[in-house]
């Protein structure tokens, strides 16, 4: 630009319009834009620095701020709102059969040792199953049993009671009530019809092992 420079005010759009232009340019640009670039894109006679500074003031304290980045300018999320740039997706999963059975035993028999849980379930309790329940906050380690080996016991937590809408673990319905509620719809097989059984517990063992593997994997976020 040679002198005598054209008098800007004569031809240039008014400042609010210049601010609109700068706003749009900075918004749409894929990288910070320098004053020189802004000037090249604005109509002749504009005042890029004045428009940028005015715009910067207008955005002060808002959700988006106009920042100086290197020798350019760019819009950025206000630093205090960066937590909004995280989205949490909640994934709902059903508990494995091993986990829910273990949980049920702890709830009904607490405090209960691992050996006792295994005795009731009839299969080994995988460490991962208990870990999962503890990590979920539904089960915690209670006092050690005063027996040889001083084994740890497990109890359910307040979080558990909260989730299941119970005041205390004593509120869990007993077997008789379960039967009355139709949850134990057992029709004992008439003795005469009883056929020799193929022992089926082996399957259960395998199932438990699989569950445990799944859980140990899936727990990682």
């Amino acid at each position, binding site marked *: 630009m040679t002198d005598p420079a054209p008098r800007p005010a004569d031809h240039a759009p008014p400042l609010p319009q210049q601010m609109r232009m700068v706003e749009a340019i900075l918004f749409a*640009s894929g990288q910070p834009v320098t004053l020189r670039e802004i000037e090249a894109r604005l109509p002749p006679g504009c005042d890029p620095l004045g428009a940028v500074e005015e715009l910067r003031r207008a955005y002060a304290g808002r959700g988006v701020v106009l920042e100086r980045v290197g020798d350019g300018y760019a819009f950025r999320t206000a630093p205090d709102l960066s937590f909004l740039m995280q989205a949490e997706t909640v994934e709902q999963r059903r508990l494995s059969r091993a986990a829910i059975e273990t949980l049920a035993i702890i709830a009904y028999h607490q405090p209960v040792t691992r050996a006792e849980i295994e005795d009731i379930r009839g299969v080994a309790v995988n460490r991962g199953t208990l870990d999962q329940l503890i990590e979920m906050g539904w089960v915690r380690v209670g006092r050690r049993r005063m027996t040889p080996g001083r084994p740890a016991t497990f109890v359910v937590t307040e979080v558990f009671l909260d989730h299941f809408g119970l005041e205390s673990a004593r509120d869990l319905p007993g077997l008789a009530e379960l039967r009355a509620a139709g949850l134990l719809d057992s029709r004992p097989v008439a003795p005469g019809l009883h*056929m020799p059984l193929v022992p089926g517990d082996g399957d259960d063992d395998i199932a438990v092992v699989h569950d445990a593997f799944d859980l140990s994997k899936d727990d990682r976020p």
Partner: protein
Amino acid sequence: MARLPADIPYLRPVPDADTVARRQADELLIVDVDGYEGPLDLLLTLARTQKVDLMRISVLELAQQYLDFVEQARTLRIELAADYLVMAAWLAFLKSRLLLPPDPETEGPSAEDMAAHLAFQLERLGAMRQAAARLMGCNRLGIDRFARGMPETVARTRRMEWQAGLIDLMRAYARLRTRDEFRPYAFDRRDVFTMEQALDRLRGLVGEAADWTDLAAYLPDGWQSQPGRRRSATAATFAASLELARQGRIELRQTDAFAPIRLRRKPLDSDPP
């Protein structure tokens, strides 16, 4: 590639000059016919030359325009796609119906209805063309309006929520505590030989039994030594032999209580007495 000017939609007359120019003109003509997006498009272009509202178009005149077009194409040895010819036939039919006095015997829509519907279709196509143009004239993203140039990525975290209800819990417990009370009913089919199996087997074998044979000889392999399997196979084979005797295919004989049961096929007429 130039479409024909809207007000002269006919094929251009071929200048009777040298052959090269003629060939070039022919090629141009082919391109021009191809320039129409089907017969309806061509009809719409022809209709526009009437310079009236499409709903008040003279369908009779339009049909004639179209037939002239097709005729001209034919004299210029331009091959028209089949749908252009089908349309020509239909328009010729419509034209004749429009010209003749209505025949009260004729079923179906009147010629006027057909003409009105054609006019509607042309108007609708024209309207959609216009709508398409207006649509493309909207403020388009990436041309007139722009998105944020530096979108910020949203960090996604996954949180697992475990679902389990009180019912699940109680069911699980009930299942465990009553496991010894009942078992699912399981029927072991491995050591059972059914009557159907025995019948199938026996049917195939008794044809050979011209002489009395012990029933025990018909037990299948693998079912003779183990007592349980032998019992099942014997019972099934015996029941099958009763069925075949009832059908008159075999005869049974037992000389004494607990004596071996023997069978033979029913003697045929051809057998020696």
